[in-house]
């Protein structure tokens, strides 16, 4: 087994060096020799080694029966083994057991007929492929439904070996396949993912899909919502969409589905918050944390807007709680110690009130060595984090505290720099020391720009740097 793995690794290395055209050719040959019904042979093992490059190149893969089977719900597939959050998602790990169940329980001759019909289709025969697909999905739904029908409340042997997740996914896929053709038509009308804005035509298409789904089973309305959540660029739009449907075609959407859209949205925001909270505990990069929080804040604000016409006090309460948590995260991880992190990189005048006789020598001596890169990086990171938060401070209820902080920080940067500048004895400084002092002032200008804007920072530059002109030549790094 180890020998085989070694060989595969060797082949994988060689494959990665092939030109794109040669690689494409080899993929074509391997695809041709694969079994129609999947499995775990050497070709599959090799294909799994090629997958990373296949994904990168996004090659048009040969359409197999298994791939056609997954096509209706492919947008809901995720690599996450335990997907949570907005809408229903199916983990890719569930595909293999689900397809195996279909193959084991189906009439082999019928599947072979589907496979033979598919084999003679070229990739551009989309209508023909779609027709075979519709037959396959309807048949697979029946097969799965039969397999899932439990006797005495217990699933039969083939199902008992499945994980809880796989079992739930198979139940969902069985439901989905019953209305697959309706959803394929809906997806066609929604156009390419992601959908930025739902137009009247889109709403009409969704209503038609709901009508068709209701004709099969009203409980499947949630599948339409799942597909929409996967399609929308901003999942928070879902609430407004279902509200519009409730106005236009109340009979087609049940109260449960309306609630589901709101629930799904709140769940999504909560999931995002959980991820960011975990990230906050692991990182010291404050700007990255703010970037992570941004999506969360945007969705909380979007959801607030969307829920305004709803009498859902529970959802609103949950949203308020999320907003409070986000604000606490910002206060703890962005505002706290912000001054220290930024100002550490700048010269600090001695505290005259505590020690009146303290001379100015020490802070000025510190200017003679180049700035500490780690301190500069921390100061920049903090300043960027503050700047990124400007947009959201008001929405998070942190307005006054935030803006006071930024204003006092800006003033402190200016005061410290000016204080040091007037004490510099330029005539007595060697070129190296002058360059080092200039570098400190440039750090001050940079962080002031990030915190308080370019105009104010440029004023400081003019005040400080006139004495250093002309600007230093770029210094090549030392051999060390």
């Amino acid at each position, binding site marked *: 087994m180890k020998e085989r793995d070694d060989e595969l690794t060797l082949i994988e290395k060689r494959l990665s060096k092939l030109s*794109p055209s040669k690689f494409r050719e080899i993929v074509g040959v391997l695809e041709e020799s694969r079994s129609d019904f999947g499995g775990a042979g050497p070709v599959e093992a090799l294909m799994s080694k090629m997958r990373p490059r296949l*994904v*990168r*190149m*996004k*090659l*048009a893969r040969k359409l197999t029966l298994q791939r056609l089977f997954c096509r209706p719900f492919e947008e809901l597939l995720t690599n996450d083994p335990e997907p949570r959050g907005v809408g229903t998602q199916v983990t890719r790990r569930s595909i293999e057991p689900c397809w195996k169940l279909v193959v084991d329980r189906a009439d082999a001759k019928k599947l072979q007929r589907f496979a033979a019909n598919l084999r003679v289709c070229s990739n551009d025969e989309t209508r023909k492929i779609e027709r075979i697909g519709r037959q396959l999905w309807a048949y697979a739904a029946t097969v799965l439904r039969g397999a899932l029908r439990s006797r005495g409340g217990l699933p039969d042997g083939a199902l008992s070996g499945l994980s809880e997740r796989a079992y739930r996914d198979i139940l969902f896929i069985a439901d989905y396949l019953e209305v697959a053709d309706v959803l394929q038509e809906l997806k066609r009308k929604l156009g*390419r993912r*992601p959908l930025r804005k739902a137009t009247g035509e889109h709403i009409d298409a969704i209503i038609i899909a709901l009508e068709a789904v209701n004709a099969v089973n009203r409980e499947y309305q949630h599948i339409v919502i799942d597909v929409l959540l996967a399609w929308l660029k901003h999942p928070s739009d879902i609430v407004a969409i279902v509200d519009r449907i409730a106005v236009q075609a109340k009979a087609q959407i049940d109260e449960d589905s309306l609630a589901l859209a709101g629930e799904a949205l709140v769940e999504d925001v909560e999931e995002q918050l959980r991820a960011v909270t975990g990230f906050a505990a692991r990182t010291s990069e404050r700007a990255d944390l703010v970037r992570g929080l941004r999506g969360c804040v945007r969705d909380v604000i979007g959801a607030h807007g969307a829920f305004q016409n709803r009498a859902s006090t529970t959802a609103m309460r949950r949203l308020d709680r999320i907003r409070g948590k986000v604000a606490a995260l910002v206060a703890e991880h962005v505002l706290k110690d912000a001054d220290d992190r930024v100002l550490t990189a700048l010269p600090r005048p001695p505290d005259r009130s505590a020690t009146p006789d303290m001379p100015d020598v020490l802070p000025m001596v510190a200017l003679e060595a180049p700035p500490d*890169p780690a301190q*500069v*990086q921390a100061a*920049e990171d903090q300043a*960027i984090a503050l*700047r*990124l938060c400007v947009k959201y401070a008001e929405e998070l209820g942190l307005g006054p505290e935030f803006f006071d902080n930024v204003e006092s920080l800006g003033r402190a940067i200016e005061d410290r720099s000016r204080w040091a500048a007037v004490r510099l004895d330029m005539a007595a400084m060697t070129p190296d020391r002058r360059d080092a002092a*200039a*570098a400190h002032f*440039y*750090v001050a*200008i*940079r962080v002031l*720009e*990030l915190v308080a*804007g*370019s*105009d104010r*920072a*440029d004023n400081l*530059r003019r005040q400080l740097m006139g004495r250093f002109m002309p*600007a*230093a*030549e*770029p*210094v*090549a*790094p030392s051999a060390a």
Partner: protein
Amino acid sequence: MTVTASAQKHDNFWPTTFEERGAVVPFTTPVLAFSRVRSQEERGLELLVPGLAGGRDTYVIPWRSLPSVFVMTVHDRLLREQIEGLPSSTPSEIRHASLQVESTGLAGGANAQAARQAAGDDESEKLLTNFFLVTEAVRQLSNGKLQIGPADLTHDAGRARIKEILTRVAGLFKLTADDFYARLENWAGMVAPIGVPGLNYTCRLRQLIADIAGYADDLETWSDRELSDVSDSARVCVQIAEETASSARTLATGIDRYAADMRGTLTDWRTSVERLEALMAKLCWMLDGWRPIVTLWRETDTGNREASQDAVGEMLRLMPIMPRREVGSRARRTWGDLSQSLQRTRVKAHEDWLSGKVDIELVLRLERFKAIGHERARR
């Protein structure tokens, strides 16, 4: 944001010369990113901003008006002042000025480090090219009978030997060893950005030519699987990149030829220097503006369709088109067609990019591009 009354607008801008096209200024203010500066006899310096209003036109803005028209980053204000003081606004001069400004840290600590590293790499390229030219001169001019190596530099006897060899070789041209060495040093200074064939180091511009060719391949692969109109735009970029890489390779071969025939080069030294200078200047102009494009595409997550389409829109806005008079009569037709296609296929760039607001994330992104653009390939 309003553009001053002194700003002009060019429709279907296809410049006549490189100087008219202008040199790319690596500004970090998003609305000014990748715009070009040129010097006009009557009007002085001016900035050419493509697609300022999200359209197809190129706006021409007087250099001095920039601070009153745009809210510029402090980095850009200092760079503007530095460029104003330059004797000429060629790509090499602009690069030097930009490295100076970046090394202050006004575009971030990482950028300052990258600029200092780039300045160091430039120096290394010069030294390596110089040493290679010396060893190659000795080898070629002694018909392979004499050789010097780096080890000779490490001890007194070796250095004395080098001096003796150089004196002998210099005698062929009736020069002293010092004058002979000065010529080679001058030569190395001129061609260091592209290096010389056989050098065990890929110099900056040679790497860029290879990267442009690689960019064309990657973008073509992407456009093959892109089904929207953006694939047509991407193919225009591919064609421009292929044509540019091919022309640049031809120029590089011309420059390399001088190192292959050192006797001829050194015999007719004055003419050789003039030609080498002209070829290098043309090569620098030709490749000007390509590094940010290559970096932009490399940094694009091609798995994200929307981001890739936006990147193609941005790249179309920035595509350096070869000027009319800088190409031969046969290539002029190709470039004329490409220039037309570029005008026809321009897609609307990302709104934020041109909104005129200083969006800090866009500024940081541009700063990152600058830092990455300075990185030399791992060798």
